[in-house]
């Protein structure tokens, strides 16, 4: 997964989360449901913070677009500095931590078992990465 694909995946995760939470809470508000997800403070906080992070992402994209069209390269310059929207990854870090925090509080109730699950998944991913690197080094084709 390339870096651009990774950022787009995180963006889709944030949009998906906002869409699901907004749909469920608006359904309850529109139909006067007895059980309203909007009563839960954690979901409203996640919704508003993800929306704020997407505004930051949009501003970064616009700044990068301006940087692309208005940048200049000095003659004989060795390094061309590209815009930083896919380098600082501020949006991805903030939105992923927001969604993971929601999972931790709601599914695990703030229990430390969540970190055990995350550590297990991370270990598995690291193992896969090591196997891929080894296979690439040995045969040149990771698959």
């Amino acid at each position, binding site marked *: 997964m390339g870096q651009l694909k990774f950022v787009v995946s995180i963006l889709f995760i944030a949009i998906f989360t906002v869409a*699901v939470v907004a749909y469920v809470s608006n359904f309850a508000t529109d*139909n006067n*449901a*007895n059980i309203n*997800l909007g009563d*839960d403070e*954690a979901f409203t906080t996640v919704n508003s913070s993800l929306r704020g992070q997407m505004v930051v992402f949009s501003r970064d994209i616009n700044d990068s677009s301006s940087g692309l069209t208005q940048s200049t390269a000095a003659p004989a310059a060795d390094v061309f500095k590209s815009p930083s929207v896919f380098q600082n990854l501020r949006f991805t870090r903030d939105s992923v931590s927001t969604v993971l925090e929601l999972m931790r509080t*709601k599914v695990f109730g703030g229990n430390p078992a969540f970190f055990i699950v995350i550590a297990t998944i991370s270990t598995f991913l690291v193992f896969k990465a090591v196997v891929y690197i080894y296979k690439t080094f040995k045969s040149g084709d990771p698959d």
Partner: protein
Amino acid sequence: MPLYTIPNGTSGIDTTLIETMESVPSFIPALFFFIFMVIFLGGTSSQRKRTGSSDTPMWATIAGLSVLMVALPLTLTAGLVDTVTLSILVVITIASGFWFFLSRSRGEAF
């Protein structure tokens, strides 16, 4: 003494469901789990049968959204779904989407 109170079946299916839920509190969560697993396992196994491989994250997302669609009408009446169950359902759907979007490989469209 009976093991549980037999629900009154003459006053509408909503009352029957609520009284069943009062006697067996795990009734609705078990129903959600059943629907989720039927869609998830049925989808993955049939796709594997047809194409040779299955897109597990996609079927997890579809199953989560389907269960959410079933759960939403049940929130209109008090006594069927509580806030904790609905919260866990929403978070499982979001987690399935998390898995789905990160599982797309290079060159594969969303």
